Structure formats: structure tokens, C-alpha cells
């Protein structure tokens, strides 16, 4: 046989070639919206402590006036107050590549520009994770273990928040499983008032993918995989809350002009060259913290995982 076959050209071909394209590995890359229900506290910089205390004060209509006799002496009213803390801690990430790895890098990913972009996304992901890890702990819960989330659950949550005097707009941070159980319920089980409403239709047609999903029944919805499980992983526990439930803070590190550092928003990105090992490191640092403030300003939504 003198035919020239691909399988015979073993000295002239390689087993694989790079396409020049690359795909990002699957991950939750959504960023929390700048929503009024989320409180960003002032930075800890120069404050003398990593713990920020925010008082809750019972003024502006908290206590009503009492009916009092024409010449009777008014009794004094106690000023109701409480407080909650947010503590800030260091978060870091480090990539380190050898010179050889950087020389053969065919996709241009092992360089400062890509690391700067990664720093922005990483900061958003870290903050999202901190906040999502708080929504499962509110004292008030709605939903049932082992049962899919439903439109009825959402209606109960909104009613509970309103009865607790929580001001809107409300933000829902839930697992995509919970959101899609509710979508399924809207499509298949709920009545026309929800099913055929503009927001109900928008819910069914919402852009697929993690992140902000739109408004439904008075709540702005956000899905993330960072929402914790509960009941030994049997269920998911997202949460819906109004302003006052959760707060976060940060302590940006200011770049030193004498060092190979740069600020990417609040993140400090720096380059670390180890000459003896011929490696170049890229490190990103930020100080972040989040905490519950007023417990009753949020509701945890428990539903089947």
C-alpha cells in the first residue's frame, strides 16, 4: 500500500494542537448587586479596631405617645437601643508561575493584566460568599425540609417581613435550586394572578445563569451557589431580607509606590519575583467582613436541596 494515511504520518503530526481559544472552567462568577438592602459600613482604616459596632436606635417613631391627663406629669420613655458587630479579616490569593510556564503560555493568561482581571472577579466572589453565608441563620424561617420551594413560600416570606416592619426593597439571595423550584411552581401550579402576571412571565423567561434574576412579588432575586446547605445537606437555606439585616465592611490596603503593587479597587495586587527559583508570583489581598445586624429584618427560606 502506498497510500498516504494520516495514521502513518507519525513523524509529521502531533497528537493535539492548541486551538488558540480557551474556555473558563465552570464557576459562580456573579457579583452581588449594589442593592439598598445591603449596608456597606465605613472602612476600618484608621479606626483602631477590626470590629465595627453599629448601634440600632429606637427613634423616628419607634415609641408612640401615650394619652396623658391635662395636667398630669408625663412619664419618661426609655430609649430602646441595641448594637451589632462586623469584624474584618484578611483574605488573600496567590498564583505563582515559573519562567518556563510563562514563556510557553500560549493563551496569555499568566500575566499581570489577566491577574488584575482575576482580582476584580475574585473580590466580588469573596464578598458574595461572605454575605451568602449569613442568610441561612435568621431566626425566622419559612418553608419545609424536604419540600420544594414554592410561590406560597415567597408570599409567606414577604408577609413575614412586612409584619416585622421591615422596609423594602427586599433582596433575596437564594440557591438556584430554590429559585427554579419556585419557577416551576409558578409555571405549573400557581394561579393566574402570579402565573400570567408580567413579573411571573418575566420570571419564567429570565436570563439563565447565576446572578441577578429580576423582581418578583416585591423581592429582587439573586442566585448563587454560595448559599449554604442545611439539615446535613438535605436542604438549602437561602434568605430574603430588607435594609438592616446584613452589613459588610472592608479595609483596603493602599499600594506602596516603592513596591510592585497596584490597587484594583479595594484589592491590593502585587508581584512577587523569586529570582533564585525563577518564579513570578501574583498575590491579591483584601480585608473583608460581614455580619448580621437586625435578626428580624430577614427570613431564612428552607427548601429541598
Amino acid at each position, binding site marked *: 500500500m502506498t497510500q498516504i494515511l494520516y495514521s502513518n504520518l507519525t513523524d509529521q503530526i502531533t497528537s493535539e494542537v492548541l486551538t488558540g481559544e480557551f474556555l473558563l472552567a465552570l464557576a459562580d462568577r456573579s457579583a452581588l448587586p449594589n442593592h439598598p438592602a445591603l449596608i456597606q459600613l465605613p472602612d476600618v482604616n484608621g479606626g483602631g479596631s477590626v470590629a465595627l459596632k453599629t448601634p440600632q436606635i429606637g427613634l423616628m417613631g419607634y415609641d408612640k405617645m401615650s394619652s396623658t391627663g391635662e395636667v398630669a406629669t408625663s412619664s419618661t420613655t426609655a430609649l430602646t437601643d441595641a448594637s451589632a458587630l462586623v469584624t474584618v479579616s484578611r483574605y488573600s490569593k496567590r498564583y505563582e508561575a515559573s519562567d518556563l510556564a510563562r514563556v510557553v503560555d500560549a493563551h496569555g493568561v499568566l500575566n499581570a493584566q489577566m491577574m488584575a482581571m482575576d482580582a476584580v472577579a475574585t473580590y466580588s466572589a469573596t464578598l458574595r460568599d461572605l454575605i451568602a453565608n449569613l442568610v441561612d441563620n435568621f431566626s425566622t424561617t419559612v418553608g419545609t425540609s424536604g419540600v420544594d420551594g414554592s410561590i406560597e413560600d415567597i408570599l409567606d416570606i414577604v408577609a413575614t417581613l412586612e409584619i416585622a416592619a421591615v422596609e423594602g426593597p427586599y433582596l433575596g439571595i437564594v440557591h438556584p435550586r430554590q429559585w427554579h423550584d419556585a419557577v416551576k411552581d409558578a409555571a405549573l401550579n400557581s394561579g393566574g394572578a402570579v402565573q400570567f402576571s408580567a413579573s411571573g412571565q418575566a420570571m419564567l423567561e429570565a436570563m439563565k445563569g447565576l446572578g441577578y434574576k429580576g423582581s418578583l412579588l416585591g423581592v429582587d432575586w439573586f442566585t448563587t451557589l454560595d448559599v449554604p446547605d442545611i439539615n*446535613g445537606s438535605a436542604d438549602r437555606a437561602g434568605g430574603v431580607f430588607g435594609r438592616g439585616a446584613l452589613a459588610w465592611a472592608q479595609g483596603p490596603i493602599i499600594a506602596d509606590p516603592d513596591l510592585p503593587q497596584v490597587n484594583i479597587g479595594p484589592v491590593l495586587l502585587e508581584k512577587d519575583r523569586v529570582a533564585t527559583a525563577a518564579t513570578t508570583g501574583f498575590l491579591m489581598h483584601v480585608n473583608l467582613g460581614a455580619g448580621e445586624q437586625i435578626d428580624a429584618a430577614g427570613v431564612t427560606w428552607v427548601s429541598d436541596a
Partner: protein
Amino acid sequence: MPSTAFDTAATTQAAPSGAVGGAAFVPGVDRDMGPNRAPRLTKRAPFLYFAHPERWQILDGDILPLLGKLKLQPGVMGVQRGRAPGAVNLRLARVACEERGRTIIPVDSVPPAHVAPGEAPSYLRTIDSTSGPVVLSRYAQAFAGSAATKCNEVEWAEFLRHQINVGVVDPAPTWVLERMRDSRAKSLERMESNQSTNRAKRERLQAEVDVLDAMIAERMEVAAPVVGTSAMPSVEG
């Protein structure tokens, strides 16, 4: 070392009688693709469970606490980095929990039957996954090569019941039971008035109402409501 999918020991041992067998050749592989491959779990912070007097649920036909998690992650809910490497300082986090009426469940509060002989009692467990060691609840099951986790529901219910039996968690207050019962009864009513065909949900709700009714009736026998004194408002005209 566990055998892998590439283990050739079986073929070398099966050599004909009289042939030189030699030692089994087990090639080293970077990633175990066999049945012992690691679960694909994402890293997460260890945690302590906590109970709250208003967080309850019906599981396994019983009224059991719906536990929350205090994540041992510096920056979350007052948790700070400790002095020892890898340790966390819970001083502020414990205060925050107490202020909110939460009871932290000690990590070793586990039914003795759930702990293997010689094993340290803990409701947390470390599992080697593709992303390194991951801390999970003892009652969350992970599977080879999978990102999915599943709850060992029987032991989980036993664990929750254990917390009440040993006095770590007080039983649910009666008013909470009544509130749970009312919300389920209303859902049932709505299903009936809407002629819902979801029989499974209806049966589940009815079973839960029955459990709650029984528990409330039991409580009422031992705990009479507080009797106050007659109030006489001052009224003219």
C-alpha cells in the same frame, strides 16, 4: 494503597502453573479514575451548629430543631483569626450568638452509637476531595467522583433528637408549635378550597398537623396557662 483501575495484579497472578509470576506491576497515575477517586467537593469553612428557640421542623415524625451554622471563617459574624496558626477566635461570635438567643451545639455532642470505637466524637468530618480536605457534617454523605452530597436522614434525626435528650437544646416552646400547626392547617385549608390535586403534599401536611396536635395536647396536660388577676379599667360615663 488501594488498587486502581490500572492494577494488573490479577493478570500476573493468573500465570500458568510453573511460569515465573513476578511482582505485580502497579503503574503510578496522577489522578485515580477508579472507584476510589475523590469526591469533587468545593472547599468550605468548618462550622458549629447552633439552635434557636424559634427554629423548629418536623422530621422523621418528630419535632426537631432546625439548626443553623456558625461558620468558623474569619470575617463572618464576628469570627476572628486566632493566635495559633489556623485557629479562630470566637469571643465576639459567641456574644453575637447569645444576644440572638442562639445555643451553640458542642462539636462533640454526638450520639455515642454514631461514633466508631476509638474515634473522637465530632459532628464534623474531614473528607479528601479533589480540592483538598473538606469539612462536612458527619451526616452529609459524599460520593466518589461526584460533587453531590446526600444526608443520612435517619442518623441526622437521631442526632437532633440527641440534643434534646441530653439537654443541650430545650424542647420547642408550645407557642412555636401552635404557630407551626396554624400555618400548616391554613395551607391545608387553601389546598382544599383550591381543590388541589397534590395528594402527596396534602397527606404530608395532614401528618404534620397530627404530630403537632399530639404534641400540643401533651403539653397542655402538664402546662396550664398563666392565670392573671381581673383588670378593671377606669371608665366614666
